[in-house]
């Protein structure tokens, strides 16, 4: 399963943007040589410039570049890399790619292909967790329908009565909301199963469905876990990720305002049990749903470094990417559970180039002005600079802004101040929207659930009108000129050597299933 004590000297980073930058920086700190890969649109991207060597994979479309496992493995061989770090998204949870790396004699910095595969199958993952004693949402597979797709109403009803209503019918091999039906009572069961099975067959080629109890207004709380090749496994506490829009997390924090010490301990133990159950190696995340009563249920396991890992690093003081590389090289975990602790409170906001007033549509174009906030307890993970372009090919996240402070209230205040001091002009961003969330009384009270944004901020509109006079004064002064260095209005110059051709757009790409 693992290459024992394998010396890693050169790491190829099979990703782009802020996570590639994050990994390259960790490698440089450790004295490792780095290889970046890029598409033709990213030749002059920050990640490509930071690495010791850069290999161009192909055209901008991910399917022709960052998803080309074969080209990436060849690039690793050509540059004498010993290991590949997949980041998140793209090939990070692709079991076939992990296998191909191993076959090529390369260390895949992540869990084994077997573990990736098991955790990628919802029913298989559920079965493993149940066996390990990890609470799962009460549910059950259904009796198979007849060849014509008709379910036995009595048999199905019996199973569903046992699970309890309301319940969800879900596709066993599905995702992304397809093949899912909410059922309120027994009368709706058969029709919902048949519809879900039909949809699942069409979307995933397999119509197997199962039922699960529906949890209303759940919180999304996940635990960071870490395992090594010697069987060691620890957790690095939780992250509350309930603030989501369209299943996409936008604000994450730790500790969760919902957990008491006993629940935290029970969940941490369950997360470690989950990691041990599959012999997990490297960084992973066990996601739970927490219901209004504080009961928690296994949701899924993400077999990669998570987007929101900085908050965990801030409160634990540990470097997860460094630990990933050490563990992948065959070293034991750098910490025991007792050596790990969580201090203070950390929050991350994902700053996106998108328009919250227009259905969160990506906002494309050049970053005419970009100044990152700084100060005590402020961290920015960014893959772009002023003059770079937000293009249609990739996720429109500009950066992750994270703060660390002594307690939750101080962290919220620090985050709000940092967002107000984060000028980005040229594309529309969600900064003001994030500020509205942070300022909401329900957020301050910690009353979070995954439907928070739909409940509290439907049809959100900017309050920029309040500052209209101020904006006019600033624009008027800028027009007259005399500003430092800029000679008046900051020139909206665009890097003349822009590599990206933003109009060569074929389709929009978002990392599938980003945690």
């Amino acid at each position: 399963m693992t290459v024992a004590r394998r010396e890693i000297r050169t790491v190829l980073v099979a990703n782009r943007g802020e996570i590639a930058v994050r990994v390259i920086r960790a490698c440089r700190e450790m004295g490792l040589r780095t290889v970046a890969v890029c598409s033709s649109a990213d030749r002059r991207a920050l990640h490509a410039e930071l690495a010791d060597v850069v290999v161009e994979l192909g055209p901008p479309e991910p399917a022709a570049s960052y998803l080309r496992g074969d080209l990436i493995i060849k690039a690793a061989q050509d540059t004498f890399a010993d290991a590949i770090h997949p980041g998140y998204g793209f090939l990070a949870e692709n079991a076939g790619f992990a296998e191909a790396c191993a076959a090529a004699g390369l260390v895949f910095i992540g869990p084994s292909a077997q573990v990736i595969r098991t955790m990628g199958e919802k029913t298989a993952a559920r079965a493993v967790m149940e066996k390990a004693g990890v609470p799962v949402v009460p549910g059950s597979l259904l009796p198979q329908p007849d060849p014509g797709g008709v379910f036995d109403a009595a048999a199905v009803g019996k199973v569903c009565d046992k699970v309890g209503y309301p319940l969800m019918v879900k596709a066993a091999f599905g995702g992304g909301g397809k093949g899912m039906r909410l059922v309120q009572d027994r009368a709706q069961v058969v029709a919902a199963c048949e519809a879900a099975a039909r949809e699942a067959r069409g979307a995933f080629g397999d119509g197997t469905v199962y039922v699960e109890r529906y949890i209303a207004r759940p919180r999304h709380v996940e635990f960071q876990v870490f395992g090594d090749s010697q069987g060691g496994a620890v957790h690095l506490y939780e992250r509350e990720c309930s603030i989501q829009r369209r299943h996409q997390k936008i604000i994450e924090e730790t500790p969760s305002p919902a957990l008491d010490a006993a629940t935290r301990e029970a969940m941490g133990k369950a997360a470690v049990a989950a990691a041990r159950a599959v012999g997990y190696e490297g960084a992973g995340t066990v996601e739970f749903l927490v219901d209004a009563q504080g009961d928690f249920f296994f949701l899924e396991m993400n077999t990669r470094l998570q987007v929101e890992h900085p908050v965990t690093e801030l409160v634990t003081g540990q470097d997860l990417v460094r630990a990933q590389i050490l563990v992948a090289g065959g070293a034991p975990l750098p910490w025991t559970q007792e050596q790990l602790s969580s201090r203070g409170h950390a929050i991350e906001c994902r700053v996106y180039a998108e328009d919250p007033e227009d259905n969160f549509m990506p906002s494309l174009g050049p970053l005419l002005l970009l100044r990152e906030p700084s100060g005590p307890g402020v961290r920015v993970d960014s893959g772009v600079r002023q003059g770079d372009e937000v293009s249609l090919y990739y996720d429109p996240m500009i950066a992750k802004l994270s703060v660390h402070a002594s307690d939750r209230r101080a962290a919220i205040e620090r985050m709000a101040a940092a967002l107000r001091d984060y000028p980005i002009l040229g594309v529309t961003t969600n900064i003001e929207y994030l500020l509205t969330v942070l300022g909401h009384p329900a957020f301050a009270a910690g009353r979070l659930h995954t439907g928070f944004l739909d409940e509290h901020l439907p049809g959100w509109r900017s309050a920029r009108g309040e500052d209209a006079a101020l904006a006019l004064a600033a624009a008027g002064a800028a027009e007259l000129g005399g500003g430092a260095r800029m000679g008046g209005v900051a020139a909206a110059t665009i890097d003349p050597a822009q590599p990206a051709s933003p109009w060569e757009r074929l389709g929009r790409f978002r990392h599938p299933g980003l945690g």
Partner: protein
Amino acid sequence: MQLKFRDESGEHVLDVRRQDGATLVTVAGARDATSVTAAGDGAWLVAGADGGRRRAWVVSHRDERLVFCDGRVHRLRRPDPVHADEAAGGGAEGPDLHARMPGKVVRLLVDVGQDVAAGQPLVIMESMKMETELAAPVAGVVDRIAVAEGQVVAQGDLLVAVSPPPAP
């Protein structure tokens, strides 16, 4: 001097003047002038009614002025009678040369003040990896070049302003 800006609420007329290293901006209809000074990092410090100062950032992009302050972004339009078609999104009519599609300016073939004939190539653009020569719609004199070589432009952006030749 007097300036006009347009935002969501309509058009605003500003009186702008310098005094003791600061800029005093009075919005028509407002009682007091607002004092604005330049910060060392390129920001603008705008004095508030409460005696505090707020930091604003301004960039100019085509006919727009984009302002960031405390997490909010304001888009102000600067009505420009000379190049009104620019504000309207780029009309192809008239003597001025606009970008027909987004692209990169590869070469500028003329200088300010130069006489050009109708159909004479003025700019070489690159779009979709193909180079295209853009020619003067009418004969005239180049009175402004609005872009630089290597610059990326959007569809409708003004490239070269040409004024018709004086009547013979």
